[in-house]
């Protein structure tokens, strides 16, 4: 938690503000000196003390400007110098001036280290510096006047507030840094996707198209090219990294079903997302997967998946053009191992409060229609 490395450079303006504060408060010190010098015990020494303060203001302004020098040596020296000036003040002003209630010579200037400590390390450091300086100030006066006490409290509050703001700005800087990195990664990914799209995908599609009608090895190569084209396409069009903390945020059913799309499985869906709670989407996708496995095993050929979002319900239909089976001959279906799948699919849908309609005609393939209600989360 030490002086945090600059992520977004957010604390640079804070350090500049501390330097400005020190110069401005030094100007006020000069005003106080000119006004009250004739009532001080040692006016010349007071002048010398103000010169020391001016010099130290310059040293800190330059010192804190460089991130490498913002370490403990300068912070401790800052506090020590200001404490020393504070300790010299009673002698310079003299008892009568202090008892008359005149402000101590450094007035607000002594808050400088409190701000520096707070900016460098947050609230806790600001409080420590404020307590040290406040205690020294009260001790040198030898009594607790309401004005002096107020000053100490204000200094403490300044330490807390500035420390808090400093922490916030560092955190904001780090977040911005991370966001910029993430954006760069996403851009790179999009650029890659474009490049792949422009080159590899086109060539694979061309190979497939020109070779699809050939027999033997050439036809096989064309088919392989087609499969790779589909795989690559789904890879580059897949959603980017999931935002953190979105564990139970609705997921897009299309993304889950996209994994099933291939050269033989066509996926039709709306252009926009089909959001569902993650468990519902996962169960539904699993049921679709089971239906597709079944279609591949028994249907053999192509299959089509249609996703429809009707607001209150989401419907997924799966169709194949396999041999199908007669609806009244379930015993035969059991023998073929089909009913097991059908029951598994029905079971999953029942758990979701939905329905599964399975329609099969011999010679005309099988159609499965899965419907789930969308409950408000």
């Amino acid at each position, binding site marked *: 938690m030490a002086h945090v490395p600059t992520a977004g450079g957010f604390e640079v303006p804070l350090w500049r503000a501390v330097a400005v504060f020190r110069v401005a408060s030094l100007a006020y010190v000069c005003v106080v000196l000119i006004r009250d010098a004739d009532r001080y015990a040692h006016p010349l020494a007071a002048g010398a003390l103000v010169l020391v303060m001016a010099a130290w203001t310059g040293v800190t302004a330059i010192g804190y400007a460089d991130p490498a020098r913002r370490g403990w040596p300068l912070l401790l020296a800052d506090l020590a110098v200001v404490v020393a000036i504070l300790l010299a003040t009673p002698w310079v002003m003299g008892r009568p001036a202090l008892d008359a209630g005149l402000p101590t010579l450094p007035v607000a200037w002594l808050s400088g280290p409190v701000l520096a400590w707070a900016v460098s390390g947050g609230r806790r450091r600001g409080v420590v510096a404020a307590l040290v300086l406040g205690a020294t100030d009260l001790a040198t006066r030898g009594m607790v006047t309401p004005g002096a006490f107020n000053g100490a409290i204000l200094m403490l509050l300044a330490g807390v507030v500035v420390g808090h703001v400093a922490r916030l700005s560092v955190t904001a800087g780090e977040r911005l840094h991370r966001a910029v990195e993430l954006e760069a990664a996403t851009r790179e990914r999009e650029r890659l996707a474009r490049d792949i799209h422009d080159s590899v995908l086109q060539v694979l599609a061309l190979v497939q198209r020109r070779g699809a009608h050939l027999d033997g090895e050439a036809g096989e190569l064309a088919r392989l090219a087609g499969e790779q084209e589909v795989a690559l396409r789904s890879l580059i069009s897949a959603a980017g990294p999931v935002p953190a903390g979105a564990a139970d945020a609705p997921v897009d059913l299309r993304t889950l079903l996209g994994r099933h799309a291939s050269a033989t499985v066509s996926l*039709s869906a709306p252009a926009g997302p089909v959001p569902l709670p993650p468990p519902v989407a996962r169960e539904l996708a699993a049921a679709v997967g089971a239906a597709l496995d079944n279609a591949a095993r028994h249907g053999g050929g192509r299959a089509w998946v249609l996703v429809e979002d009707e607001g209150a319900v989401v419907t997924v239909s799966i169709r194949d053009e396999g041999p199908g089976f007669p609806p009244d001959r379930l015993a035969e279906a059991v023998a073929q191992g089909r009913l097991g799948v059908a029951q598994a699919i029905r079971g999953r849908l029942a758990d979701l409060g939905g329905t599964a309609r399975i329609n099969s005609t011999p010679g005309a393939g099988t159609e499965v229609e899965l419907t789930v209600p969308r409950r408000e989360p």
Partner: protein
Amino acid sequence: MSGLRVMVVDDHPMWREGVARDLTEAGHQVVASCGEGRQAVRVVAAARPDVVVLDLQLPDISGVEVIQGLRAAHPDVRVLMLSASGEQQGVLDAVKAGATGYLLKSAGLAEFLEAVRRTAAGEPVFTPGLAGLVLGEYRRLATVTSHAAADAEDAAPRLTDRETEVLRLVAKGMSYKQIAERLGLSHRTVQNHVQNTLGKLQLHNRVELTRYAIERGLDD
């Protein structure tokens, strides 16, 4: 088969040449081929193609802009879109802008030539994926307008029950012939239903664009 005048627009030279060769071998005439959308819009009036085979992803302007430009320069032209990846919103926007055919680039040669022929004849060429997109778009429009409580003129286009039924079957991969058999309709009727679903969407899109233009004009 009488040869068609075809224009090929694709930024990939290898693909462009392959397609042109396939079309020529099939007896069609490739009247122009370009790699950029703006160029295509410039030459379309002079080339007078029956069909433009258009890659949706061009380096200079979007597929929608190309289609609007082509139709403005040569109103009779029919557009068959091809895309290598299933850019879904892009395909839908292109259909709304007036393209009547859509095919994935991975489609086979016979399928491609058939699509060119049917697009030229004014028949809609749908993939199951496109039917899913169009179905989704009708549902989206219905929700948007019911929320906005629009007046009758802006009412979202709606599908008849029959059109929905046909479109769902197209989305599930059935051919027009299979659909006609299942629903006991003629092939021509099925085709008309599909055509109507596109027509209403394109009309609605034109109305929306005009309204938008008027609103912008009045605001300025």
